[in-house]
């Protein structure tokens, strides 16, 4: 199953935090198969770019827009966002959580398969609050798979995952790109393997 044709466009975008200008004149396009790796020190505006791309922020200047099958679209149709928080209900079990998101995204994805891919197949009845930090991140990966959205916006998703998990993250991400998906990834650490194909967007200190 391939993902629909899509495009995320930043045109001459400027953003500000408080009184300081973070960046200005930012232009890029993200389309099927693209991976853009956002780099830059803390406070340089990586999260701001991701939140602009998710439609959570409105640019100070310029324009951010989304296309799906060459038609104008809203982020609610094509974007999956993972912030540096884990939006999980500590009381609910792993499978309850994923069932909830399957309903929210109105997704056709197979939950069991997504759990296996994320390496959580034996944790279905465990409460999310009992998972370790790394396992929570894996659950977040499973939610990304469930969303079946073409554009993934990832904020430090690979942190706190063990080396096996990191390998898993890279294989999930490269599968996503092969299916015609795209991703905008903010990370401090180098993105192994697939990192070679990634475009880099390096932000200076604000």
């Amino acid at each position, binding site marked *: 199953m391939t993902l629909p044709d899509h495009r995320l466009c930043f045109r001459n975008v400027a953003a500000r*935090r408080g009184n300081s200008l973070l960046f200005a004149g930012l232009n890029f396009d993200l389309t099927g198969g693209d991976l853009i790796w956002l780099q830059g020190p803390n406070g340089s505006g990586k999260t701001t770019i991701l939140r602009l791309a998710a439609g*959570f922020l409105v640019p100070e200047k310029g324009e951010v827009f989304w296309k799906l099958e060459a038609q104008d679209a809203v982020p609610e149709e094509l974007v999956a*966002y993972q912030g540096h928080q884990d939006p999980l*209900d500590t009381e609910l079990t792993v499978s309850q959580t994923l069932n909830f998101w399957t309903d*929210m995204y109105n997704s056709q994805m197979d939950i069991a398969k997504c759990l296996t891919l994320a390496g959580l197949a034996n944790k279905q009845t465990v409460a999310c609050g009992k998972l370790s930090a790394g396992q929570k991140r894996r659950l977040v990966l499973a939610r990304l798979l469930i969303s079946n959205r073409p554009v993934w916006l990832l904020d430090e998703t690979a942190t706190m995952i063990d080396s096996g998990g990191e390998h898993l993250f890279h294989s999930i991400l490269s599968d996503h790109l092969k299916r015609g998906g795209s991703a905008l990834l903010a990370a401090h650490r180098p993105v192994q393997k697939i990192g070679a194909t990634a475009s880099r967007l390096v932000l200076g200190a604000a």
Partner: protein
Amino acid sequence: MDALIARDLRLAGADLSSWLPGLLFFVFFIMVSVIAIGPEARILRDMAGGLIWLALLFSLILKVSDLFQRDMMTGMTEQIFLSGQSKLQFVIAKAVSVFLIHLIPLLIIIPIVGFVLGLEAQQGWAMTLSVLVAAPALIFYVLMTAAILSRQRTGGFIAVIMVLPFLIPILIFGVAAAESADSSSLYSVEIKALLGLNLISMSVGIPAIVAALKANIHQVT
């Protein structure tokens, strides 16, 4: 929408501290009032309607800061908004959950408290009925305040000041409806006024809740 309500119910079931304190507060408020007013049966009976309504309002206001705050802080609300769920459905689902989790326990206990205060059974049911009729207005105003304050960690006191002006008309007509419902017909003027307040609360509340949540999502940088 079912999934949203089911999630709220599961969370409430797993964490009693999210709703039980509101119920206990209601009971304690009545108990303390009885001690303060004294055991004179006639006075208690006359004051019962007002006391029950006051206890109900305070118990609901007590919940305001929790209703959206946790989901807003963990990033859950923005994920739900981004998932493409209709925002109208989201707000209605939340209102239904608040009714089921916070208001139903109060509705059940009101006739019991009424009996303790010396109300006739019919008067007790009239109390329950008046609260039931006013429920949508109570819920939407409380949710509106909760949405506006969803990113304020110490919003408790502001919440009281913000929500009270909206709740006062409901209090006025609610108390009057409870008193008239046992003497005259079910469709008293007060009940009609409450129904009107419900409509206003929905037409003002639903867009305001969505706008406030969006504004709070946009605030994070």
